[in-house]
């Protein structure tokens, strides 16, 4: 009876039930600790997978504990003991780049509380923590959100931008050996506000990477509160209780920042001058180029309202063309990925939507509804989108004439409680797949991360269970302790007078897909909220006998050195695979990673075409390389590493 009452009281939000006699100090929910529905979902997926027309006979295993990545993401009390509905739970990102130029891809993870964590890779999937030595320990005093790597000075090493909440954003210059120097102030990019995502791109194609920073808006009070984690004292600005009404209050808006790279590591903020005036609750962004003019346009996600599309006017400014180009967008957008879903040579757009899921009814045990769009019956005075919203994920299929068709439901692109997404060809069959970091945390129930394998460019197939990514080992963990004797006595104590452990659901925020152990297949690293990352190692290379792929790294000369904005097409006897170099690598983040082309068993590449941002078109016929990394230099042609 007690279980029933509490179950009714908290419905989908699993604050918990008492486990009375067995564990008197524990306060948890049976469903959260033993979610039998996960097993049911797994069974259904395994049955359905018998009809999948794609290769899925491989697995991922979480080797986080053996990887050397001992990072622990930490949260402030607004996500725990003092939980409130505020945007502190939206971070955090993770990124990869070869920071010390040893040929191996290193990983940087961002925590809401405490320092970022930089881990160098020995090339075989073993990492060493080097944060302090790299000069990044100073981030520990700030509330960080995400990060991106980009080579701002074209000197061949990845520099680093980190966003924060009200503490001033960072720009670090890399010395080429993996040591970073804070140049935020002198570079004029140290905005102080509620920043979120950051991307590097070259909007005027002058060969220098500019910086675009999204800002959510004011969601914290001018009140600082101290808290302690494992003996260490931190502080933060306490969140506003009505932050989810922020999009209704113009005075809380913080427009995005566009920093034009002037050279010499100096930047000028030109957002308004260039026509970028987003007055919304924006979080992430990606470049796209639907009009194929080579000038990168911007798709900016808005988490409380409609998204914004800025068309680039030949580098001279941006025009908001949302209503003509994307008349309906998700209401609560989070992440974005731009890739060619069906190998038609056109770049499609996938936008995930978390906040619409929060506007609908809680989905408790009717898990089939997780694949449905949300029935939102909320007043227009709150939504403010004049009926032009999609309440769920959107997938915009490019039609070739610059327009798009929204096909998310036709291709099975919906999921529940998504944050950011990453795209990559997990089974190397030539079609881009997707990993969507998902799930709320305390005080909500668990939700699974979503893996969508691409069935020949026709539809996505849910595959998180058959690939071993779900169920994860632990779906919940102790979240915090309430001292119900005095200090924390509130309604959650339910008459208890001692310490009570409150449990919360695990949930990922972002993911990063790359070949971290150099075995030719793609692995996945996640950043978890209030927990340790998952390092999901693929065994595809052991299970796919005709695995074939090509990794391509671009080295710009006239163009920006990272080749951001370049279009690369790899042609085999069977197909042509096209990628726009966006650098996007997950939620709120951009990495410096080689492109990975799965070649569906092809034994050779016939041709590679690179359209550089400079306008140079480079054709490489029969490069004579496969299952390896090809470095393409804008000046010198192809060079096999």
């Amino acid at each position, binding site marked *: 009876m007690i279980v029933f009452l509490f179950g009714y*009281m*908290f*419905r989908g*939000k699993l*604050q918990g039930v008492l486990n009375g006699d067995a564990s008197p100090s524990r306060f948890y929910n049976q469903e959260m600790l033993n979610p039998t529905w996960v097993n049911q979902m797994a069974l259904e997926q395994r049955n359905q997978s018998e009809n999948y027309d794609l290769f899925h006979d491989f697995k991922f295993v979480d080797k986080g504990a053996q990887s050397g990545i001992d990072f622990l993401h930490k949260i402030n009390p607004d996500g725990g003991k003092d*939980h*409130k*509905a505020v945007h502190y739970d939206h971070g955090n990102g993770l990124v990869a780049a070869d920071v010390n130029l040893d040929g191996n891809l290193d990983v940087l993870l961002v925590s809401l509380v405490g320092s970022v964590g930089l881990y160098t890779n020995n090339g075989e999937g073993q990492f060493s923590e080097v944060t302090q030595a790299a000069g990044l320990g100073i981030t520990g005093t700030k509330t960080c959100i995400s990060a991106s790597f980009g080579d701002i000075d074209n000197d061949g090493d990845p520099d680093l931008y980190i966003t924060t909440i009200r503490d001033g954003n960072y720009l670090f210059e890399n010395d080429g050996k993996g040591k970073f120097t804070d140049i935020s102030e002198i570079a004029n990019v140290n905005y102080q506000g509620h920043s979120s995502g950051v991307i590097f791109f070259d909007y005027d194609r002058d060969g220098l990477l500019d910086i675009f920073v999204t800002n959510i808006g004011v969601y914290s009070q001018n009140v600082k509160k101290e808290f302690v984690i494992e003996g260490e004292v931190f502080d933060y600005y306490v969140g506003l*209780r*009505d932050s*989810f*009404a922020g999009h*209704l*209050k113009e005075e809380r808006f913080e427009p995005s920042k566009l920093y034009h790279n002037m050279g010499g590591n100096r930047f000028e903020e030109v957002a308004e001058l260039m026509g970028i005036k987003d007055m919304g609750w924006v979080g992430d962004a990606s470049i796209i180029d639907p009009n194929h003019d080579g000038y990168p346009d911007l798709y900016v996600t808005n988490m409380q309202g409609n998204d914004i599309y800025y068309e680039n006017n030949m580098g001279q400014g941006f025009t908001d063309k949302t209503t003509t180009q994307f008349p309906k967008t998700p209401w609560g957008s989070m992440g974005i990925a731009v890739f060619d879903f069906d190998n038609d040579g056109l770049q499609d757009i996938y936008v995930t939507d978390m906040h619409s899921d*929060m*506007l609908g009814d809680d989905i408790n045990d009717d898990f089939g509804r997780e694949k449905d769009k949300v029935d939102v*019956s*909320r*007043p227009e*005075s*709150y939504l403010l989108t004049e009926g032009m919203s999609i309440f769920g994920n959107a997938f915009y299929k490019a039609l070739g004439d610059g327009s798009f068709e929204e096909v998310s439901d036709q291709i099975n692109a919906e999921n529940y409680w998504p944050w950011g997404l990453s795209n990559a060809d997990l089974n190397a069959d030539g079609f881009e797949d997707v990993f969507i970091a998902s799930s709320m945390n305390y*005080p909500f129930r668990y939700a699974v991360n979503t893996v969508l394998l691409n069935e020949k460019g026709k539809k996505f197939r849910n595959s998180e269970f058959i690939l071993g990514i779900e169920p994860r080992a632990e779906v919940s963990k102790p979240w915090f302790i309430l001292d119900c004797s005095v200090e924390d006595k509130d*309604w959650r104590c339910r008459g208890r007078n001692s310490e009570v452990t409150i449990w919360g659901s695990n949930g990922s925020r972002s993911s990063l897909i790359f070949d971290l152990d150099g075995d030719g297949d793609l692995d996945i690293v996640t950043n978890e909220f209030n927990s340790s990352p998952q390092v999901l190692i693929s065994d595809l290379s052991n299970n796919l006998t005709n695995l074939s792929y090509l990794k391509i790294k671009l080295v710009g000369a006239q163009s920006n050195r990272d080749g951001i904005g370049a279009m690369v097409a790899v042609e085999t006897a069977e197909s042509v695979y096209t990628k726009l170099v966006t650098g996007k690598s997950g939620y709120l983040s951009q990495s410096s990673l080689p492109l990975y082309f799965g070649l569906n068993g092809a034994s050779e590449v016939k041709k590679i075409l690179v359209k550089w941002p400079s306008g140079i078109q480079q054709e490489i016929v029969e490069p004579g390389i496969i299952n390896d990394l090809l470095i393409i230099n804008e000046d010198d042609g192809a060079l096999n590493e």
Partner: protein
Amino acid sequence: MKTASERYKFCLIIFLLVFFLPYGCKNTNALGFEFANPYIVEVIGQDYEWRIRYPGKDGIINTQDDIWKEENFVLPTNTEIRLIFKSEDYLYFVELPELEKNGMAVPGLESPIDLKTGSPMKLQFNGDQMCGFSHESLIESVSVQSKKRFIKYLTD
């Protein structure tokens, strides 16, 4: 009626009914409660509780004679009603499932739900904090009562 006494009693009852019942109603009306069309009631979320603000005698909300209630949520029968939801802190979802009405209480925003009450009945009234804890105290019922009982509720 067999006796004069019985006839007397009968006449007395009729007299009382004829004169005092209307007088009683008039007395109620004499309390001065006007019912504007629609009759506007504010429902305000604060600290995971609902506070209800009714018009006073003038029937107009947001005047000095407004009546505040926190314990029960009562509405008059056979009345066009506009519930205006507000919040002093968090965002709250509201639902009147039998009427298939949904709304929100948002700080800085007035969100109306229009409805027409009929006979006396009880309606479920569900409240829920958006993106946060659910609280038992936000889940109530609405009691639809005759105007006479409703006015009594207001004046008690």
